[in-house]
């Protein structure tokens, strides 16, 4: 039985206007207008056609939507785009330079660190954040600090090996 859900007040809510914001996505300033409830994930995928970032669970439990905002890895599915006005966003599309793969991308290929590939953009963005943070020195620490990225194919040993290679510790 579904229970009736009510707001704390009975006032009807006007549909808000879209809000203009700018994001620096992979080094390029982008202007967009979104409703307040648009997540950063949906803004990237549906408004900016950057579909490399994946929607997995949409509840912050799988990590497929991981991107970097102002250099820090976050779950874009639990982030409202309007709250990140002016921020620098890095997605998987921004990693390769002049056609050359980022060392993490190359390491994932070298170590066969994916099967279906759906979690891979999130894994790689998360690993990029992990390396920048500098808190993981051992395989145990990589496993722990990458635990926010689920791989349903179970490529974890190869993901750890790829990250170790990119860290120069293989």
């Amino acid at each position, binding site marked *: 039985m579904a*229970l009736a859900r009510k707001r704390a007040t009975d006032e009807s809510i006007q549909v808000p206007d879209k809000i203009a914001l700018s994001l620096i996505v992979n080094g390029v300033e982008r202007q967009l207008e979104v409703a307040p409830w648009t997540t950063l994930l949906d803004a990237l995928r549906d408004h900016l056609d950057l579909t490399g970032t994946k929607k997995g669970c949409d509840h912050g439990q799988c990590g497929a939507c991981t991107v970097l905002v102002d250099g820090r890895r976050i779950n874009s599915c639990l982030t409202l785009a309007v709250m990140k006005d002016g921020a620098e966003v890095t997605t998987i599309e921004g990693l390769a330079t002049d056609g050359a793969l980022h060392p993490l991308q190359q390491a994932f290929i070298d170590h066969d660190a994916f099967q279906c590939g759906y979690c891979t953009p999130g894994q790689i963005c998360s690993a990029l954040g992990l390396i920048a*943070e500098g808190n993981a020195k051992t395989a145990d*620490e990589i*496993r722990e600090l990458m635990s926010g990225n689920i791989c349903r194919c179970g490529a974890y040993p190869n993901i750890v090996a790829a990250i170790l290679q990119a860290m120069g510790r293989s």
Partner: protein
Amino acid sequence: MINFQYARASDVADAVRMIATDPAAKFIAGGTNLIDLMKEDVERPSRLIDISRLPLKNVEETADGGLRIGALVPNSDLAYHPLVAQRYPMLGSAILAGASQQLRNMASTGGNLLQRTRCYYFYDTATPCNKREPGSGCSARNGLNRMHAILGTSESCIATHPSDMCVALAALDATVHVAGPGGERAIAFTDFYRLPGDTPARDTNLHPGELVTAVELPARGFAKNYTYLKIRDRLSYAFALVSVAAALELDGDTIKQARLALGGVAHKPWRDTSAEAALRGKTASLATFTQAADLVLRDAKGFAHNAFKIELARKGIVRALTQAAQGTPQSQSDKKIR
């Protein structure tokens, strides 16, 4: 998510003013729990008041040797902060035992305090839940209750508080600073949370419209003999079945000071000062620790699926006090419990 309005607060006073004029609004900082609850239709705010740009991001030493942590300091920054690592390592360890690094990068100190229970029925709007819909009933008492509370439960709610960070803050005797329509006030951590009683919809003793601005720690940090031991269904990125923050000050084998708080077992971080008092002056030994554990769990009550937590908590307390006494805190990356 339902439609809502969005506004950005320019300072603390502005935030407090804005929410006073719109009681159905909510503050948003990291958003990791609130946005999820909005997607699930559990939270339905009329407006989100964005406080994420307010100047509450500093970690500062206080005049009396403590630490004042701004409400918007991200969990990850706090966990790795040099002063926390040096003086309050139990806090850093507890933070790193919770969530994932992505979520810790987003989640704020104040938001961690105010996150809601992860009781499945609270999240499932198709089922009765007194916390979500007062008076509708508790689906967990006679439902699936493996993750639920064993201490301080009531007829109307057996939910647990999900935070790890707050278990360490309770053990460390933190104080919560808030600003509201009535001005600023400080709330002792032990007075901040409520037991469910017959009003489980209220998690805390915050007044309507109050904003958490800072969390303050006293000087005593238990940096030498401490642990945060978290026991869960998988090795990482899962909520606690039982967690234990244990801290001691020792003079040889004699316990001078003790702190003991549990997570995953109650509606609030469960600190037991009577067990702490019973530890003081005793010799650090298995017998002493077992007595303390028995004391903490004297009124524990299990339900159909979670009665195992009572024995798990007993063993967890003894092991955590042993780790603390030996100066060998639980590693949060090597998960072997020694």
